[in-house]
């Protein structure tokens, strides 16, 4: 199979691998400098043996004629300059991948947390993966019903998409993700599905919530969990999502699974990246994040999609907390520039007790237009969605006006739009965490609330659609 990502590519001649050195020149933050090295390659993985016998992983960040700079994925506590042993492996960081990982729980570096044995890989794959050739991709267009109206109706998810949730601290984004996982119709439908769950710096409770949710829906045996929890070393977070996606790629493209990859919380990942960048003394760009944050995030998010001739797929559901609830912060901003849309949560809706608190206006599914319509969802879907957007946007504007001049001073037309806005939030948006609406139910509900609008405002749906679905 010449189609496999080639890790062999990067193996140097055997006589050069496995070189060991005793002693470091310096330790600066997570960076170790070793001198006197020969034959060391950029980006090769390194084992670091502390005097107490413990072993950690690193990789070569830069290498000159005499000196190599190593990034350590772990703690420098207990390392000494004299007695630390460094072994260069001669290959890039790899992960063992295997179908047997399904059902397992590992830490953020891939060590078992469930008491089971160390996984025996069917193959060993480069953690960084390789870009999918655009000529080899299949454009994603299969509708995934999540049962959530705000998503299915207005920000449709398709198989192979990368669609993040932009959360705010204290909002129920994990509950929302768990509901998607429970209800998403990709599960079960085609038999071969898997969930790859990567936690970066999250609380125990969150990991548990997902575990229980997987258990409750009886899918635990199809799940691999990689958990870097809040009290685990931050720098390991740089590895965790790559580990998870390396496994996801194997399951999807070698073992024909439809994989749903859940990555949470990408904000913690970015923070770890910033920490490392600043200890390297790099010139920061916005808010202290490195200038290559975009490319770095892309190397994670682009590992989603479908490939010609392979029956599996990777659908990514990353989650991130917007610092300060600010969508223009570099983390959500650069994510939005890479992913195929975003589901944005809203504190105001949450405070008014609306679940799921999705603000549809800044939300987007870029792959929606190809995933909906006659034969996929329903012929009126695209127009109905567009009409809901236009009207809800207007309703929100009128709401702010009403706050100034009072509802009584509004024109009757404006009052109708305002009522539409309320119906939208109360009937369409709001649903129970266990409520699973079919796409037909969602679209019918949309028409029901569109009736609140003055007829002249229905400019984005056709006359024929109004006749068929809008009760004439």
């Amino acid at each position, binding site marked *: 199979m010449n189609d496999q990502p080639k890790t062999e590519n990067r193996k140097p001649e055997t006589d050069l691998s496995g070189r060991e050195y005793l002693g470091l020149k310096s330790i600066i933050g997570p960076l170790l400098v070793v001198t006197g090295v020969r034959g060391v390659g950029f980006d090769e993985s390194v084992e670091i043996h502390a005097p107490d016998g413990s072993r950690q992983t690193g990789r070569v960040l830069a290498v000159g004629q005499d000196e190599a700079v190593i990034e350590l994925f772990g703690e420098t506590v207990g390392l000494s300059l004299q007695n630390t042993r460094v072994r260069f492996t001669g290959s890039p960081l790899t992960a063992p991948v295997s179908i047997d990982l399904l059902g397992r729980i590992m830490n953020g570096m891939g060590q078992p947390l469930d008491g089971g044995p160390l996984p025996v890989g069917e193959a060993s794959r480069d953690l960084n993966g390789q870009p999918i050739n655009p000529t080899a991709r*299949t454009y994603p267009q299969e509708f995934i019903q999540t049962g959530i109206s705000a998503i299915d109706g207005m920000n449709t998810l398709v198989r192979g998409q990368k669609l993040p949730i932009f959360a705010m601290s204290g909002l129920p984004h994990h509950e929302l993700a768990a509901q998607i996982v429970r209800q998403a119709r990709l599960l079960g439908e085609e038999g071969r599905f898997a969930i790859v769950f990567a936690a970066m710096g999250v609380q125990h409770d969150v990991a548990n919530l997902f575990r229980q949710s997987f258990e409750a829906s009886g899918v635990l045996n199809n799940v691999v969990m990689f958990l870097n929890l809040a009290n685990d070393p931050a720098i390991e977070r740089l590895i965790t999502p790559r580990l998870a996606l390396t496994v996801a790629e194997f399951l999807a493209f070698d073992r024909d699974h439809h994989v749903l990859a859940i990555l949470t919380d990408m904000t913690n990942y970015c923070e770890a990246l910033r920490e490392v960048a600043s200890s390297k003394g790099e010139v920061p760009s916005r808010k202290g994040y490195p200038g290559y944050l975009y490319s770095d995030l892309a190397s994670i998010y682009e590992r989603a999609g479908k490939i010609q001739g392979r029956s599996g797929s990777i659908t990514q559901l990353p989650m991130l907390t917007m610092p300060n609830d600010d969508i223009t912060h570099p983390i959500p901003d650069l994510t939005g520039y890479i992913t195929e849309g975003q589901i944005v949560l809203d504190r105001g809706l949450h405070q008014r007790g609306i679940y799921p608190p999705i603000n549809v206006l800044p939300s987007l599914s870029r792959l929606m237009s190809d995933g909906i319509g006659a034969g996929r969802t329903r012929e009126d879907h695209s127009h109905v969605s567009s009409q809901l957007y236009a009207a809800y946007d207007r309703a929100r504007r009128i709401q702010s*006006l009403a706050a100034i001049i009072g509802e009584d001073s509004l024109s009757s037309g404006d009052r109708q739009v305002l009522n539409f806005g309320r119906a939208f939030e109360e009937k369409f948006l709001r649903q129970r965490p266990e409520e699973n609406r079919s796409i037909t139910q969602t679209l019918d509900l949309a028409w029901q609330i569109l009736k609140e609008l003055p007829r002249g405002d229905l400019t984005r749906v056709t006359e024929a659609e109004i006749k068929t679905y809008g009760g004439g």
Partner: protein
Amino acid sequence: MATMTETTAEVIWVSGPVMRSNGGQVLSMYEMVEVGAERLIGEVIALDGEVATVQIYEDTGGIRPGDPVVGQGAPLSVLIGPGLLGQIFDGIQRPLNALRQATGVFIGRGAQVTPLDRQKAWLFKPRLKVGDTVAGGDILGVVPETSAMEHRVLAPPGVAGEIVYMAEPGAYTLNDAIARVKDARGRETELFLWHRWPVRQGRPYKERLLPTEPLITGQRVLDALFPLAKGGAAAIPGGFGTGKTITQHQLSKWCEADLIVYVGCGERGNEMTGILTELPNLTDPRTGRPLMERTILIANTSNMPVAAREASIYTGITLAEAFRDMGYAVALMADSTSRWAEALREISGRLEEMPAEEGFPAYLATRLAEFYERAGSVITLNGSKGSVSVIGAVSPPGGDFSEPVTQQTKRFVRTFWGLDKELAAARYFPAINPIDSYSEYPDLVAGWWAEHVAPGWQEMRSQALVLLQEDYQLQRIVKIIGEEALPDTQRLTLAAARWLKEGFLQQSAFDPVDMFCPPAKQVKMLKLILETFRKAKEVMARGVPFYQVRELGELGALMRMKSAIKADELERFDELEKSLNDKLESLAG
């Protein structure tokens, strides 16, 4: 090229895409090099004493000090010849289809692939004959490359002399010499169906022309309000999800250029796949052929090596210039120039250069200027007319246009299509904010519109802009006191602005009827809206209250006409105009 194998120098340091070698005295600036056993491709970007700094276009994992660095004796160049059309290349013109053959569905390293198929035979018809004098840029002959387009085989710029051999009409591969030229000193040079050109050097032309012909895009807000001229440059800045890519896709599909060069620079893989899937199935309304046949794609997606991303823009514009020199009108899309600027920043950071604003190198503005300067309408070396129009997407952090790339870009483009997050949130597309946007071409292209479409174009355009400006002012008041509190005449202005915005400017890329709107239909629609506005004003002056106008259900037709009336039923606009006029008149009667 690849025949030179002696090691020129050795790697002495490597980190990410940047490597230093000890070849400072033997390599030259921008020379291409091959590095390591896998012969990774790189380019010299700095020389200092013994040290030559190289940026490498492929993943550098595993590269070690001591690895060989082999100079190629020439700068990074593209190959110009038949076989480019309908193809997709990476940032350094490696065909992605060939890469897939070589390394599989995942892009591997060190694949040795040629940009153009050297085995394929092309039908060549000479235009010159033995004894003719020839100079660089002359058309030696033509190859009917696709049924939509012929490839005109150019004498490489720099060549001059007399033709001493010319191939007979027939089938030739890129390996066959098709002509021989003897220069003034009696030296003979073989010419082929192809030649090379260094990407960082603009191709020569005879003379620059003032751009006077609009680049019709079929997108109303662009053509009617903020036109781009053939040979002009436009920027389309906007936060994520505001419509940069869809607009560029729309232009790639429908704009009236002979050739599209689409550079996906640091953006999504699926977007390139989307074009690859869509274009072959769309028909060019002008040639009846699949649109893919007039398209060249350059794809260096966000997760592909960053140095090749930096090069991709130059690869794209050099190919565009080559077709300009064949006498074609070319449109180049660059999505996104911000990712290119970031690639510059990343490389600059690794060189430990002094950063200017936001970490970008101080030469950002110069590089942007050089790039946009390569747009233009020209008389080519062979005396024909050709043009390169450049449309660059800009992705400002946080959607804030005050950042360096947007600000610097503004200095070098004459059309600015500013995208608006709020419009996009309401799914008002194209989300081009008519207040922020501008074009400096209307006066230049008005003559074309008057001659080919409608004499009143410029006047209608001005009226539309005035209406939008008034609407903008009024909306600020409405936000505070509500619409009800305004006098009737102002409420009519708001209503008319709504007809204009929703009925005319808004245009869905996904509406099968409306995705492309020809100029004649644009003018009909705009005239109808302005005429209805005028008539409504008139009857209100005669005492008709605004609410009667507002409640006229028939006016809803203004919002639906874009999809309800097709481009070949233009007479229906006249009927509609008459009936609305009568309806309004009857209110007064």
